[in-house]
């Protein structure tokens, strides 16, 4: 008979309270109920100001599985991880965990800034449940992995944040659990170190460790995971292969698009030019709510100028949605020697993308208009938009226009 699953999540729900004051009162009452061993039935009902952060979630993780949890911020992914980790109790349903479980939810737990890196290794390891003798044995390996040999006896407060993360991961990498929960932690650190982290995860995976991973970086989920569960507003909306869940998530996201126009600005800048709205136009020039991968698209920024301005540059930096995400496109008119003249009144500054190379997904754009080098007229920090699927991109991180053919071989080429 096959082994039972390492993790079984059955009809799990979790509720939260909106107001702080009330949530504290509920906490006192809940503790009372627990002590008196009553009120378990009432847990499945919402009280005033409560909402379901997770509702009826079920899935299984078997040995060798790497499960991706996919969903927008606040969908309930982290709450789910915390319940699997035994930090919080579910309000309905049950979670069965077989085997040792470890969580990379926060790196460097228990670090104290005044102590040296070496001392902190021992503290962090003890918190993670690694015994002292294990650490004594692996100390050199940890310091090597973190690439910190010169700094290891300096107080932690002199470390950069990247160095702390490296040290934290190096300690956590010594764990050899049956199930590893990973929540976004690998998004920090430089590319080389991240590659090293993924190598270590790969090793663990080959040794039979199962993963549950939360990340907004769909690319890394595609490389690491072999199955996925999609969660939206606390409910499972898709499960299956990572690709299919990501596609469903994106289709889900595009059905209720954010309006492409920027909302009323809270504090409009007082400079001589302001961004009034922005969005996308298709090739014929129509406003479109969600641009499509592979289409010729204009990114349009409407500017209101109090006077005629010379040498105006537009800068667009597009990131994948989510914390610590990578920049996927960064262009400025000034870098392209395409400074424009903006007449007094309203004008539309256009960036033509020929074609749009972003794969389907949700993005955040930072847009600014300026007169290089120093004068910034206006800036929009986070313009959110989604791109709908066009021609297939597969697992690619960008869309490359392409065609395929078979041509007669060049007769002069020598076959060897």
């Amino acid at each position: 008979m096959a082994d039972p699953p390492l993790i079984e999540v059955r009809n799990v729900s979790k509720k939260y309270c909106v107001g702080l004051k009330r949530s504290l009162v509920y906490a006192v009452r809940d503790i009372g109920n627990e002590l008196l061993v009553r009120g378990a039935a009432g847990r499945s009902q919402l009280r005033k100001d409560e909402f379901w952060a997770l509702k009826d979630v079920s899935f299984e993780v078997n040995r060798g599985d790497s499960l991706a949890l996919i969903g927008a911020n606040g969908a309930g992914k982290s709450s789910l991880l915390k319940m699997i980790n035994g930090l919080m109790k579910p309000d309905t349903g049950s979670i069965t965990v077989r085997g040792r479980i470890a969580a990379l939810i926060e790196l460097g737990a228990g670090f104290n800034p005044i102590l040296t890196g070496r001392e902190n290794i021992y503290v962090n390891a003890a918190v993670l449940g690694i015994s002292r003798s294990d650490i004594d044995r692996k100390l050199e390996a940890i310091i090597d992995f973190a690439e910190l040999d010169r700094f290891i006896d300096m107080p932690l407060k002199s470390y950069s944040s990247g160095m702390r993360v490296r040290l934290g991961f190096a300690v956590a990498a010594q764990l050899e659990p049956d199930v590893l929960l990973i929540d976004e932690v690998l998004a920090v650190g430089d590319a080389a170190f991240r590659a090293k982290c993924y190598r270590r995860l790969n090793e663990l995976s080959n040794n039979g460790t199962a993963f549950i991973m939360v990340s907004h970086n769909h690319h890394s989920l595609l490389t690491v995971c072999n199955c996925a569960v999609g969660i939206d507003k606390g409910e499972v909306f898709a499960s299956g292969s990572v690709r299919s869940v990501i596609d469903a998530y994106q289709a889900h996201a595009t059905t209720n698009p954010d309006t492409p126009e920027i909302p009323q600005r809270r504090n409009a800048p007082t400079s001589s030019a302001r961004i009034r709205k922005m969005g996308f136009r298709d090739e014929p020039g129509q406003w479109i709510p969600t641009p499509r991968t592979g289409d010729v698209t204009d990114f349009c920024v409407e500017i209101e100028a109090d006077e005629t301005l010379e040498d105006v540059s537009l800068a667009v930096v597009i990131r994948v949605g989510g914390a610590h995400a990578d920049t996927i496109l960064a262009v400025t008119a000034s870098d392209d020697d395409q400074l424009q003249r903006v007449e007094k009144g309203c004008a539309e500054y256009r960036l033509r993308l020929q074609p749009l190379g972003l794969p389907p997904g949700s993005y955040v754009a930072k847009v600014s208009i300026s007169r290089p080098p120093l004068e910034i007229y206006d800036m929009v920090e986070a313009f959110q938009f989604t791109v709908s699927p066009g021609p297939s991109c597969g697992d690619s991180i960008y869309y490359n226009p392409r065609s395929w053919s078979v041509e007669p071989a060049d007769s002069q080429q020598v076959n060897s």
Partner: protein
Amino acid sequence: MEKSETEQTEVVYTPQSPLTDPARLLSAQWADLKRSRELAVRLLKRNLSARYRQTLLGYFWAVFPMVATTAVWLLLLRRNVIAVEMPIGSPVLFLLIGMMLWQTFVDAVQAPLRVVSESKSMLAKINFPREALLLTALGEVLVNFAIRLIIVIAAWIWFAGDIPSATFWFVPLGVLSIILFGTTIGVLLVPLGILYQDVMHGLAFLFQVWLFATPVLYPTPTGWSHGWIAWLNPIGPLINTTRDWLMVGASDQVALFCTFSALTLIVVCFGMLLYRVAMPILLERMQS
């Protein structure tokens, strides 16, 4: 492979109260208490070295309140600002020992809540045996006590205190009882104190008043050791019995001491259960 040798443990998380099976809960807690010793020692070392590495006077801060209060009180007595009939023997030792025991009690009440509060971010993200924090708190109390003890021993030699009486060997028992009593109150306060800041603020104020309502800086008034007032303030008999054992010999409050110690032993078990049961609910409110 190494993995298959390790025992396959199975844990089930459900909405049910863990107290539906109290025996199982107690045994799990006992196992965690043993399991958390190494972590507790590590955290204690971390806290001690971190605390004293960033201060100039270091361990002096553990004894300062006790020495200062004793000095001021002595001054007030000498100038006849306050009229308190002190017992026979050295008033310095009487006050210093009383303050040492009182400070240890205060420390024991405050330590659990302080240590748990300081570890909030760790608690919210990592599943480690939570009992480790209580052991760490206990460790800090013991270390602080040891530092104060050095001062008291020095004073004892300086003021040529008598050779300790035959009851001297009961003194450690008294100290343990005081620490356990304080820690029990501290553990019981953790759930409410984590939820509401008022508890921490209230405690600081409470101790100022409480000190003067307790026979620490003055001998127990006649009649107190029999009446309801002893039951109102159990720490009085605990401190005075211990002090008597050290300085006088027999104590007339031994019966109360034993009663309160026994009660503490029962209540501390309840405190541990409460701590365990409340923790998941508290965690939901301490998310980063």
